């Protein structure tokens, strides 16, 4: 068993350093549900700084600040369903050069749009200290992001509206968790993901789909009880870009 745990930890930590991957989603949280019992409820507020690399001929880096509120409910022992609702902005920092003919001079920026996440996770305790878990989580942005950008097309100046429609992603992963002292949980894991967004810059770029550049990432985090039923969750997702998030969780 110890060999299995050590190998799993090594594998997961190796994945975290896997070059060329990109993070995609908000925090996954510890694999062990916040409420172990069936019918238990937890709520949380959180913030995520998210970076993701999209590719469609040219690599584009999406940066988002996400603020959300979370509600989770245990539907069986060690199984939990959770949902998040929040707002997210969007910045695309690499639209300055689209092609040899078409160039823009500004970054894409748009303000807050609503975003929602649904997820499910399950946990299996291996011992009093260690346990493994798996999750599936999807996020969808309800609004269309848009920004006026100026640029040149074959040397002729133009101003047009750049659309980024309904970014979404799906993530699935596994994680290993360890209970350390004072109720603190440490966890690390790996995940697969797929993300998409539609873009257009009419009439120069017809509607097309951007997809994530890579498909795998790693994550690690802490969950720390801070008293009166509250817990602090800190998590980072490692890859070509780094994302990070924190949440304050209240178990009801």
């Amino acid at each position: 068993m110890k060999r299995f745990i050590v190998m799993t930890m090594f594998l997961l930590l190796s994945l975290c350093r896997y070059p060329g991957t990109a993070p995609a989603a908000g925090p996954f949280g510890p694999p062990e549900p916040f409420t172990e019992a069936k019918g238990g409820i937890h709520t949380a507020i959180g913030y995520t700084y998210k970076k993701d690399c999209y590719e469609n001929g040219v690599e584009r880096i999406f940066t988002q600040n996400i603020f959300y509120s979370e509600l989770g409910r245990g539907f069986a022992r060690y199984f939990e369903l959770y949902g998040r609702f929040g707002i997210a902005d969007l910045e695309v920092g690499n639209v300055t050069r689209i092609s040899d003919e078409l160039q823009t001079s500004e970054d894409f920026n748009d303000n807050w749009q609503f975003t929602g996440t649904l997820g499910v996770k399950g946990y299996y305790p291996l011992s009093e200290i260690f346990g493994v878990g798996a999750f599936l989580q999807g996020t969808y942005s309800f609004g269309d992001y848009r920004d006026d950008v100026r640029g040149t097309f074959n040397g002729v100046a133009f101003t047009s509206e750049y659309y980024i429609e309904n970014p979404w992603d799906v993530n699935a992963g596994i994680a290993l968790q360890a209970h350390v002292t004072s109720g603190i949980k440490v966890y690390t894991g790996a995940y697969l993901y797929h993300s998409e967004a539609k873009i257009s810059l009419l009439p120069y770029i017809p509607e097309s789909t951007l997809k994530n550049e890579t498909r795998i990432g790693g994550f690690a985090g802490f969950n720390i009880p801070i008293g009166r039923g509250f817990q602090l969750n800190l998590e980072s997702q490692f890859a070509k870009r780094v994302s990070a998030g924190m949440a304050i969780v209240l178990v009801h």
Partner: protein
Amino acid sequence: MKYAVLQAVLIAVIISASGCAHHNDRAAMDPRELNSSAESTDRVPSSEVSGKSSENQPVMFASSSTIERNLGETYKISQAVEMKSGFNDDDWEEEEWEQEEFTIADPLEPFNRAMFQFNDTLYFRVLKPVAQGYSKVVPKPARSGISHFFDNLKFPIRFVNNLLQANFKGACSELGRFTVNTLWGVGGFLDPASKKELAIPEYDADFGQTLGMYGFGPGFYIVWPGFGPSSARDTLEIGTNIFLNPVSYVDPGYISIAARAYEIVNDTSLRIGDYEILKEAAIDPYVSLRHAYIQYREEMIRQRKNPPKPGGIN
């Protein structure tokens, strides 16, 4: 403007039943009083609720005085006080308390009785059937959550009036409750501020209570169509409640009206049967309501002025 007028009219019509139920609720706070008030002037021992209240003072203020106050909260108060103080019927009979009598004039009694009848009819013919149908469709946990949500939205009413009463502890407590319930209560649908680990006390407050704190008497008794029992002083509370309730500012106005009507139906669905019990118990429900209303309001103000000392008698 037209929406404001429309809203006022609709609220007046719809809440009447709610008003009936609420004030009957107050009467039900202490059924002993119901049969003792067949006079046009009410006299009530003020210390009957708070006389032996102990250190948990916030509980005593937990449910307040707006005319839309629900009966469940009123029960909660009296039960909580009794639990904290060990106060029960035997104590009531055996102990001798310093008696303070509350009175209110009722020069508009013919009008008030007509309005009482109007509200009563509206409750049985409109509000109760709608609330019963609604409660069959929506499960109780959801209705409780919705009730919490609307109550959480009324935070500005409680916060501002606590400040006006110079009750800064109460204002801070209400701010804390609002923050916790909004952020970790899914916008107020849950009430984590009341859970055991946090236990942030409620400090309910309204404008009528604030005026009472500064020495304004209740004036005369009046029953408003839709709003139920009130007094000249507490009537001012209706306007301030609309002004401080964020729901009033929802645009377009008809959504604000619909939300208010929905809140009334939802709250009523949680209290069906309370009013009926009161009517059955009372010899004259009108007098019982008036009596309960004035004793409840004045007791609230008295307690806010002179918070009960831990383990002692005011």
